[in-house]
């Protein structure tokens, strides 16, 4: 005789929820009640964010070279300095985040994301470990590049400085990267070597005297973006800006996005708990919440129009069609 237990007889105590009209309506109602306020709050938060975006890649090309931007950017003899003037549209409370935004730059391209070696970045002893870094693995004479790989090689190297009138707005470039990256991912005793020595320069150079853990621009850059249009933190300005302030931006337009039709933008933005200026979330919450309210009412109506007694055995198919069998 098999031993009897509630488990073997499949009779464990169990809860058997049923989707009764009451449940359906209350679930929709509840979701609506949560979602609409959250959505409104998010919308308000997003509205509070002040964001100034300035696309400068085209504007910074000298007028005589707009037909051949590639020649402009590739010619080391042409000065890449450029000045932009921004007008503040709303009051901006510090800290003001300075981002650069790249459009159409596939930092998530398979060739690109794979081309790095994280072991080399954290451990000075592993400088020779350059696997997966192709095609920026070693110099022509076979010396390992530190940091190797396409990602590091393509380091963004435009620089910005800001003045308001005569006042210099200092950009604080400390702590723009993740603390975890500085402490664990990029070695304190790993120094750049043979970097950007190849025929083709992908981007910025690194000071060989500074360890990787302090090369914050590199660290930020190497957190590859998820989407082809992305922003990266350049620094923070700890000064409140007033509406209609005029900011002068001096930038050096070094980074080549002309070869693939990318765009470069400078972004000044404040932040809230929700991040930057994106009201999608707010709208999404309000819409979903609204839809749930609608569904709650629709179902209430339906249940009134076409009520059904729960568990009425007259609804069983063989009772509905008694001649069936």
């Amino acid at each position: 005789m098999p031993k009897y237990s509630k488990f073997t007889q499949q009779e464990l105590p169990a809860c058997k929820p049923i989707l009764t009209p009451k449940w359906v309506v209350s679930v929709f109602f509840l979701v609506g009640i949560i979602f609409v306020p959250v959505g409104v709050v998010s919308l308000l938060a997003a509205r509070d964010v002040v964001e100034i975006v300035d696309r400068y890649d085209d504007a910074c090309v000298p007028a005589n070279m707009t037909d051949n931007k590639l020649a402009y950017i590739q010619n080391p003899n042409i000065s890449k300095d450029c000045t932009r003037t921004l007008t503040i549209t709303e009051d901006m409370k510090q800290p003001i985040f300075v981002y650069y935004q790249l459009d159409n730059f596939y930092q998530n391209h398979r060739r690109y994301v794979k081309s790095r070696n994280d072991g080399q970045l954290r451990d000075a002893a592993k400088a020779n470990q350059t696997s997966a870094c192709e095609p920026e693995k070693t110099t022509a004479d076979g010396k390992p590049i530190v940091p190797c790989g396409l990602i590091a090689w393509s380091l963004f190297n435009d620089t910005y400085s800001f003045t308001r009138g005569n006042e210099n707005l200092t950009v604080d470039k400390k702590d723009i990267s993740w603390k975890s990256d500085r402490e664990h991912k990029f070695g304190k005793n790993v120094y750049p070597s043979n970097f950007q020595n190849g025929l083709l320069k992908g981007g910025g150079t690194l000071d060989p005297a500074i360890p990787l853990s302090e090369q914050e621009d590199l660290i930020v850059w190497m957190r590859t973006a998820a989407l082809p249009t992305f922003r990266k933190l350049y620094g923070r300005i700890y000064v409140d800006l007033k509406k209609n302030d005029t900011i002068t931006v001096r930038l050096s337009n070094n980074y080549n996005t002309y070869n693939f039709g990318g765009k470069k933008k400078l972004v000044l933005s404040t932040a809230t708990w929700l991040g930057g200026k994106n009201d999608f979330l707010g709208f999404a919450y309000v819409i979903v919440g609204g839809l749930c309210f609608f569904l709650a009412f629709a179902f209430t109506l339906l249940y009134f129009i076409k009520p059904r007694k729960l568990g009425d055995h007259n609804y069983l198919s063989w009772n509905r069609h008694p001649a069936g069998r």
Partner: protein
Amino acid sequence: MDVPAKLPDPVPSPILRHSPSSGSAMSRSLRSVVDMPSVTFAADMRSDSTRGAESTASSFESFRRAGSRPVPGVARLPTRRSASERAGSQRDLRDEDARFVYINDAARTNAPPARFPDNSVRTTKYSVLTFIPRNLYEQFHRVAYVYFLILAALNQVPQLGVFSPVASVLPLAFVLGVTAVKDAYEDWRRHRSDKNENNRTASVMVDGVFRPKPWSDIHVGELVRVVANETLPCDMVLVSTSDPTGVAYSNLKTRYAKQETLTTPPEQLAGAAVIRCERPNRNIYGFTANLELEGGESRRIPLGPSNIVLRGCELKNTAWAVGVVVYAGRETKAMLNNAGAPSKRSRLETQMNRETLFLSAILVALCSVVAALSGVWLRNHEHDLELAQFFHKKDYVSDDGNGNYNYYGIAAQIVFAFLMAVIVFQIMIPISLYISMELVRLGQAYFMIRDTNLYDASSDTRFQCRSLNINEDLGQVRCVFSDKTGTLTQNKMEFRCASIEGVDYSDIARQQPVGEGDRIWVPKKMPVSVDREIVELLRNGGETEQGRHAREFFLALATCNTIVPLILDGPDPKRKIIDYQGESPDEQALVSAAAAYGFVLVERTSGHIVIDVLGEKQRFDVLGLHEFDSDRKRMSVIIGCPDKTVKLFVKGADNSMFGVIDKTMNPDVVRATEKHLHAYSSLGLRTLVIGMRELSQEEFQEWQMAYEKASTALLGRGGLLRGVAANIERNLRLLGASGIEDKLQDGVPEAIEKLRQAGIKVWVLTGDKQETAISIGFSCKLLTREMTQIVINSNSRDSCRKSLDDAISMVNKLRSLSTDSQARVPLALVIDGNSLVYIFDTDHEDKLFEVAIACDVVLCCRVAPLQKAGIVDLIKKRTSDMTLAIGDGANDVSMIQMADVGIGISGQEGRQAVMASDFAMGQFRFLVPLLLVHGHWNYQRMGYMILYNFYRNATFVFVLFWYVLHTGFTLTTAITEWSSVLYSVIYTAVPTIVVAILDKDLGRRTLLKYPQLYGAGQREESYNLRLFIFFMIDSIWQSLAVFFIPYLAYRKSTIDSASLGDLWTLAVVILVNIHLAMDVIRWNWITHAAIWGSIVATLICVMVIDSIPILPGFWAIYKVMGTGLFWALLLAVIVVGMVPHFVAKAIREHFLPNDIQIAREMEKSQDSHDVTHPEVQMNTMARA
């Protein structure tokens, strides 16, 4: 009437006197299943009016066919045998087919080139060395695994390396590993039992003395001595036993040692005797051999199945027995029959393959889209890519700046993109589904085996799951084919009534309890009551005609059988209890009945029997015995009586007997007996007719010569013996007839009623005659009074066609009537074996099918085993209806193997049916909980699990796909590769398995109360193309929600791919788990643990992965979890993803409820009712 063209040669019956009839009859039935194509049956349909009942359970194989066209489907029977095996059991032995066993001379026996294997057995599949290669080889028979292996191999090509080498093989390795562990465990258990088996000791003769020796060291040719209750180590021919007559018993079967060897001390047989036997084969009821004594005069003694004892049996009621090993180890019949369970594939799995093809098509479509778009993208950016920092087309380092790095032109890149896409999207075909299904079936089998409702206390048998592949088929059965004897009935025969010399003794009123009084001999299974009048007649009838006939009648019952009485010591020393051993329950019943009336069979030796006739011991010489065979359908003995007369007693089926009875002798008696027979069978009794003849001296001598000649013939022995029997069994005087009751098993009528309510058609296939079958049909509620019976019972082809046509027109008429009037007349078809033969021969199968499916009940009587398979095949071929066959005997094997689901009743008729079955259980009525409860659950669970697995993996793949569209079509995944590979094996695998094992859509009580709920499985409501499409649409919607809500929120932000990937991972895992949670019907603590545990486990896994500093995504999850946006998005994804499913569920459950939904609500309200009124629950429980 056709002349028998060629009769199947039976197992030669070298044992002249004591062949247990039904045993060899069974062997024939088994063999005719197996050897069908080579056997030509003749149609000798005796067309006399009423056909007699059958004598024994095994006489079903009255199978004849005109011509040699094999029964449809026979070729599909899995049992295959070599030509030599067939020859061995069919014809007599030829030297080249024989094996020579020199008794007590193992060295000579095993001398080259013979070298027979020793007695060690190995049932394990693997050894330590071969495990890995062999197990892998077996696992890769699954096409899906080959697919995943190819993908893993492709991934190792540098250009296609999507995943790291370890990650790419992990899922496959995991699945292979789990299966391998399971297989290894099973094999280890087999190994352990083998070891135990091989290390058992037996006493073997070495140098003239018996010494203990491990089983594994026993060799062919050695002499082995076994004592009572010991298990036999190998197949042995009995040489001598403790019984002076050479009888030995092994598990109910009576075996004999030959007189010739009995007297010789075993050690002297060395060199003096050789056994020439057939090669090892699977036929456990057949054995052909000759014993050749080389001593003074060279003699050949035939040996047969009753001289061999088989490995695995136990010696019973015999102090000791010595035998010579003829087959050892893997060549023993037990091991040869130890083939694993049949391998079948469930319908759900077959259908699942169809959806797998759809998924493959979707997969190819996705990959093609990616490949094409990547081509377009490369073309549009052809000139940009050389310098684009993220592409870096040129390799400046190694090729002087001219070569390309990892770029082979657009065409090649498109191909690469396609292949990489296949690798990335591979889990569109759910790899873990196969292992999940295996685990789920194991779990379901566990619950079926443990179910106390499927446990038969009377025989102490549990439910057995022999095939683990078709659990879910139990939920879709539409047609049950049931054997009658032993399946619907208990196969416990009881003598009920007799007709002696035309006088009917069946009046219940005259029955009196058996008085034990001054009896010395008490049969173990005594009939409950006896007829007072017969007792009176026997005691005091003296010399009246009637009295003499009655005595002869009971003498015939006591002598004309193969029963062996065993005297047991009872509690009362004055009384001896007799246990009648024999294989035919009918004979046991008859002998017990004779004993109750004072004709006690007390002793049987090879030459005589002793019968206590009304208190006086008398010795009868058994001069000859013609064993039962299915052509004659009767058996006879020739008895030398104490008064020096020689009498022939014959008993057999009525149709066979009335052919050999001299009707002119007493026509009134014949007529009266026929009437009684009809009455008995209408009561559902099994009838037998008994006749006798006194033989004159010349007649006897003539017979004796023919008999001796026939029984020592080396060629065609069986046929000759049959001829001798047919020659003597004629001009018989009718003594009377007997009626034996075979009681219905418990709960059979209720079970059949439930099955019918569940929309399952029940077909009963029986060897009984029509009246008996119909009567049993009524008593088990298969037939009801309001049913219209269509009887097809024809003696010729033409009449058969005509009755079929009539039946069709009748069916059509009724059908047209029923369209307007709601009440439909239930129909029952009763058809007999003859008609079936004609129908199968003349290709009227379609017509039969048309009639049969219109009928609610089909009753086939007088069918042969192979016809049973043919009938099952008739339905299987023409409909998609799931068929289930249930039976208990060797004659049901073909049917059990033919049906989609085969169920064996582990009953009295041996293990043949069980060995061939997919499931085995103790009682017919267990079919109800098995199908209605477990079948329903299994089907519903498995169907949902397959759909859910498809949906779950597709959702993940679609999320990956949307992302790939934003990466320049380069198959990058934001989700870490580890999460991708762990997704289907860890993140989401456990809940679906747990739910598929434990969830119950309805409780047992409800399912049994409303058998109609079973229809859900028959209508394929839990798994069909429509549901699949719904799941896929849901999957696409949810993947859109998972991908695009975070995408839109993080557009133009600093989000890095690792953080976004983690969000997507968690979102999709939580979403699919919530989807499952929403569909779970019963939440117990295990379900809670599995579902919520999986989500937590996923979070932990993601955290662990993000804690590895050398992975690019280091610390991302901690970082992103610290932002409010993350949580807001997660909530939004889940709500948006679930809304359509929730709305659809709410609408479906409330406005379009199916039966299961209504029943669930009833169950729920019942439950809440029970809580408030607990005493009511007790009442309903009692009623249910």
